[in-house]
């Protein structure tokens, strides 16, 4: 049997793309199933839970909130005020000024009666030099600590925060995010459940705050974003958080905790060496490295996701900013997967190596180039007159009728 190069090329694209599409759709169906089960389980599990008992408890774990800030002088005072309204017995709020070029630090000093304080910083993780640490003289703000350091990026700022943090659990937030009042209780609870596995990280649903009403750092009314781009992102966030991450949480294969709001076991973070400053996807990289560390140590662990909106953030409304954000996210994914290529189909890492990593590799990282080449191949074949248009038309109709039949239920 003789097959020409042309046939091989054509078959590679035809069968390859067909196989890719079928596998991706099968993955989505599988993930929907796991997500549904996890959502149902969470709803039943927390129905009678009173999260508020954590707030005054002397036995609840100590928490340090780390909020890096760079050139945020326009909103920093309001944002810190919002963090200070959180009620929790053993809470430390660390704002890290990452060498801002504006007057953020002056504004914070004036607004919160900050004074420089002498504090020995344990060099657990190497960071850019810390210029000063500020504490408030006002008793109302005694939980606040402001770190002024040389510019080193978000990951470096978070590492500086980890060095200073006294809490057993560190909660990393974007300083401009609005947290739900009970967000901290919900994100910390999984660490206390001791279900035979050590919980190393938890995250929650991040929602789009565009067009929502915010008063005194609290979200008082939820609205659908007015901008088309933000509207699409709102939909995308819900799909991504409630479908993908819940399902991966159920499978204990979650690779990403959003950098906007995530809680981590400090001792494990330190054992792993903190955030990687050489990647733009530091949030994903840390979770992958923590998982890898736990696997290598042979310790049972879990990364948990909470299907409730815990944090609200402003989504980009211009194409330029959105493009920059997506570029950063994609580069972050590529860098993380490249750095941890050892996991790729490595049975030593169980589900992480055999399922989570390959899924991210093929369907998150490779999706854009594969889809691009698929469309390109189709166009070339069309130009060369190789497309059977009646087949294409019926196939297109079939796919769309399937899409309408199995679209998500409208309630």
């Amino acid at each position, binding site marked *: 049997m003789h097959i020409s190069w042309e046939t091989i090329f054509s*078959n590679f694209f035809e069968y390859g793309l067909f196989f890719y599409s079928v596998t991706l759709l099968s993955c989505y169906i599988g993930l929907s199933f796991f997500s549904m089960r996890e959502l149902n389980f969470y709803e039943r599990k927390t*129905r009678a839970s009173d999260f508020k*008992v954590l707030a005054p408890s*002397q036995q609840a774990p100590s928490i340090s909130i780390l909020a890096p800030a760079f050139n945020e002088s326009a909103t920093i005072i309001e944002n810190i005020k919002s963090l200070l309204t959180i009620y929790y017995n053993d809470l430390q709020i660390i704002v890290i000024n990452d060498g801002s070029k504006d007057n953020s630090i002056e504004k914070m000093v004036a607004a919160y009666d900050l004074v420089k304080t002498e504090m020995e910083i344990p060099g657990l993780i190497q960071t850019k030099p810390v210029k000063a640490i500020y504490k408030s003289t006002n008793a109302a703000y005694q939980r606040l600590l402001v770190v002024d350091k040389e510019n080193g990026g978000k990951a470096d700022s978070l590492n500086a925060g980890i060095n200073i943090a006294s809490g057993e659990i560190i909660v990393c937030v974007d300083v401009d995010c609005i947290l739900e009042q009970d967000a901290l209780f919900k994100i910390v609870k999984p660490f206390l459940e001791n*279900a035979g596995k050590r919980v190393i990280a938890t995250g929650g649903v991040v929602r789009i705050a565009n067009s929502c009403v915010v008063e005194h750092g609290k979200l008082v009314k939820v609205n659908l974003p007015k901008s088309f781009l933000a509207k699409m992102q709102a939909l995308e966030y819900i799909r991504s958080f409630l479908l993908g991450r819940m399902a991966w949480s159920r499978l204990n294969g979650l690779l990403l905790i959003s950098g906007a709001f995530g809680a981590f076991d400090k001792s494990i973070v330190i054992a792993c060496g903190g955030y990687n400053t050489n990647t733009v996807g530091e949030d994903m990289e840390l979770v992958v490295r923590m998982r890898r560390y736990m696997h290598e140590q042979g310790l049972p662990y879990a990364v948990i996701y909470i299907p409730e909106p815990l944090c609200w953030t402003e989504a980009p409304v211009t194409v330029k900013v959105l493009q920059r954000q997506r570029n950063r996210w994609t580069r972050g994914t590529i860098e993380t997967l490249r750095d941890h290529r050892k996991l790729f189909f490595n049975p030593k890492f169980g589900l992480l190596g055999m399922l989570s990593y390959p899924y991210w590799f093929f369907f998150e990282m490779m999706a854009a180039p594969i889809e691009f080449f698929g469309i390109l191949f189709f166009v070339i074949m069309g130009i060369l007159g190789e497309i059977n248009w009646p087949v294409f038309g019926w196939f297109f109709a079939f796919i769309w009728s399937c899409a309408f039949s199995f679209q998500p239920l409208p309630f």
Partner: protein
Amino acid sequence: MELFNDIAPSIACNNLLNIAVSVGFLKNAVIVALISCLIVLLVILAFVLIRRIKRRIRHRFQQLFRRWLADAIVQLALNPNQAFVISPQLTKLLQKRYHRLLALDELLICKKYLKGYAMTMVVQLYEQLELRKETDQKLKSSIWSRVVRGIQEIYVFDQYDAMDQLFAFADDDNPYIRSEAHFGVVNLQGFEALRFLKQVRNSLSDWDQINLLHQLTLFEARPLVEMPEWLALENKSVVVFALKLLEAYPEQQYYELVKACLDNEDLMVQKQASRCLDKMDTWIKQQKD
């Protein structure tokens, strides 16, 4: 080229795909997909309709029940020691299991938010309507979330006679049933209920411990007479909890026992013992001053 011939798709696979992408096959596939689309739409419509009808029935009953309950509580507050007078309409509705479960949910919410005499009246109504039957059925359920709901009803409606049932759940294999049972017995009996600690083989999570300690703050402190036994248990999570109890309610007589826990092989026990000793030292110093 020979190598590529080997890895090229087989003829059988090729034939199958040729059939799959033939116009005739795809025409049939589209018809099947459109019919299934229609069926799915009909199912969705039926589902939405049933939900709306159910919601309306539920809403109507809730309105009726709430209005009646508010009036009945006021009437009973004015004329104590009387039974609730249930309207014929409500009596008829409450014969159906669905409505009884709705009434139970309403009373559960009501009991949580009421205080004083009104609170006791809700319990009285729970008993008068014989809703315990529904609770008992939930306790027998094989679905853990229903059992949890049943346990919740037992302690919310102060069903002290069900204590034995709750104690039986205290070492259940399901962590959620276990947790709710622990909370339930302590909610009903306070410090006295801590006797369940000796029968627990499963681990007591940190979340359970925080909940129990919080619940105990609502009761008057009592001497922790079983402390030596708790500290000698094999279940390390119970030992940690006992040490937390001593931290919250220090008793000097157990100082040496706590000190001995510093030599325990379990790291958590050691850590908690050290913390407990710190608190006890401060407390002893305060007592002396």
